[in-house]
C-alpha cells in the first residue's frame, strides 16, 4: 500500500531524510516513533503529497508521487495536529465543502454517517469555533475519512487532548483502522501507540532505525525497544 525507496529530502543545504526505505502492507497500523526533529512530520507530509521528495521513489495506494498526486489524494486521508477546519462554518458545512472537493456522491448520507461515527451528530449545526479541541479533532478525523480513503495518516493526533478526549479518540481511531484501512500514525505517546498499532517503526536521524511488529514486542515493551533503537 505504501512503498518508499531511498527517500531523500533536503531543505536547501540541510538533509532531513536520508535514503529512507519504508514498506506498508494493506491493513497494517504503523506507529511511527522518533525524537523531535527526526523528520517524522516531513516524512508524513511527503506521503500526504504535500511535499515533494528530493530524491527517491514514493508510491502510495498504487500511485507514484509526485507524478500521480491527484490519484493518491483521492485515496488518502490526513489528520494533522492542526484541525484543517473552518471555524465560521458548521460541522456539516465543513464536511459538505470537503465532500464537494472530493467529488463525492450521496454526500448528505455520507455526512450523517461520518458525524455519527465520530459522535458529533447532535452538534452538526454548530459552528466549529465553538467546539472543544477534542471535538475538533474528532471532526477532523471525520473529514479525513469522509471519502473512504484506503490510507489514513495521523500526525500527532493526541496533541492537546485531555484524558476523556483521548479515550474518545482511541475509539474513533479503532473504527477508522477497522475495515482493512492502512494507517500510519506518528506519536509521542508510546503507551497509546502500543495499544493501537500492529507495527512500530522508529525514525531517527532521517532514516528508519528499527522496525518491529506487535509479536516482536512480546518479550519486551515498546519503551525499551524505542530506547534501544535510538541508542544504535
Amino acid at each position, binding site marked *: 500500500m505504501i512503498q518508499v525507496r531511498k527517500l531523500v529530502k533536503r531543505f536547501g543545504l540541510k538533509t532531513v531524510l536520508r535514503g529512507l526505505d519504508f514498506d506498508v502492507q494493506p491493513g497494517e497500523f504503523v506507529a511511527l516513533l522518533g525524537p523531535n526533529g527526526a523528520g517524522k512530520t516531513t516524512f508524513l507530509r511527503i506521503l500526504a*503529497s504535500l511535499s515533494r521528495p528530493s530524491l527517491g521513489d514514493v508510491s502510495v495506494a498504487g500511485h507514484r508521487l509526485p507524478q500521480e498526486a*491527484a490519484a493518491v*489524494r483521492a485515496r*488518502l486521508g490526513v489528520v494533522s495536529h492542526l484541525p*484543517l477546519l*473552518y471555524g465560521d462554518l458548521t460541522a456539516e458545512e465543513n464536511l459538505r465543502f470537503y465532500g464537494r472537493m472530493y467529488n463525492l456522491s450521496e454526500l448528505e*448520507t455520507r455526512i450523517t454517517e461520518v458525524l455519527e*461515527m465520530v459522535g458529533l451528530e447532535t452538534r452538526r449545526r454548530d459552528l466549529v469555533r465553538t467546539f472543544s479541541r477534542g471535538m475538533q479533532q474528532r471532526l477532523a478525523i471525520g473529514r479525513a475519512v469522509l471519502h*473512504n480513503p484506503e490510507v489514513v495518516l495521523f500526525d500527532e493526533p493526541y496533541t492537546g487532548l485531555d484524558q476523556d478526549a483521548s479515550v474518545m479518540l482511541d475509539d474513533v481511531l479503532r473504527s477508522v483502522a477497522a475495515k482493512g484501512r492502512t494507517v500510519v500514525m506518528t506519536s509521542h505517546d508510546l503507551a497509546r501507540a502500543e495499544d493501537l498499532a500492529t507495527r512500530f517503526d522508529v525514525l531517527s536521524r532521517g532514516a528508519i532505525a528499527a522496525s518491529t511488529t506487535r509479536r516482536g514486542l512480546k518479550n519486551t515493551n515498546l519503551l525499551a525497544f524505542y530506547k534501544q533503537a535510538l541508542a544504535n
Partner: protein
Amino acid sequence: MATIEVTSSARPASKPSFIKAVWAVVQKDLAAELRSRELLSAMLVFSLLVILIFNFALELDIKTRQSVTAGVLWATFAFAGTLGLNRSMAIEKDRGCLDGLLLAPVDRSAIYFGKVFSNLAFMMIVEVIVLPVYSVLYNTNLFLPGLLMVILLGSVGYTAVGTLLSAMSVQTRTRDMLLPILLFPVVLPVLIAAVKASNGYLTGTDMSEIMPWLNLLIVYDVVFIALAFMTFEFVVEE
C-alpha cells in the same frame, strides 16, 4: 460508536470538475463570511475612515472635488483591498486549511480561481457600498455604467495579483505587513489606468481618450491572471 459503512451506490472520491471545485471554494468563503461578517465590516469601516481622512487631508471643496474623486476612490479601494486579501489567506493558513485544500484532488489553479472570485466578491461588495456613501457625502453621482465597468476591471487586476501575493506573504515571517509592500509597486499600472479611466467617465471626457486606459486595464488583467494562475502552484506547493 458506529463504524463506517459505505453505501453501495456511493462512488469513490475523484477529481471534481474545475468549475465545481472553484464554485465549492467560493461558496465556502461566502458562507463563512456571511456568518461572521468580520472581513466585510473591517473593510467597509476602514474605507469610510480613509475617505474621512482624505476629506480633511485634501480639503475637497466643490472645485477640486471633481478632479480628485477618482483618485480618492481608488486609493481607498487599494488600501481596503489589502485588508481583505490578508484576512482571506490568513483564514486558510491559520487552521492549516491551506493544507486541507491541497490534500483534495483538485487542480491548484482551481484553488487559485476560487480564492480570486471570493476576494473579488468581497472587494466589490465593499465598493458597491462605498460608492453611494461617497455620492451622498459629496453630492456627486457615481452611478455611471462606465465607472462601474472600470471599477470591475480594476478590481479584477488587483485581486488577481493580490491573491497570488497574499498566498506568498502569509507564508513569511512578516505576513500581513508584507502584502502592501509586495502588491503596490506591481499593481501600479492598474491604479494609474483605473484612476484615469474613472476620471474620464466622471468628467464626461470623450471615449477616444478613455479607450487607451481601458485597453491598458484589459491587457494588465489578461497578462496577470495568466501569470498568476500559472505560478500559483509554485507558491503553495513544496
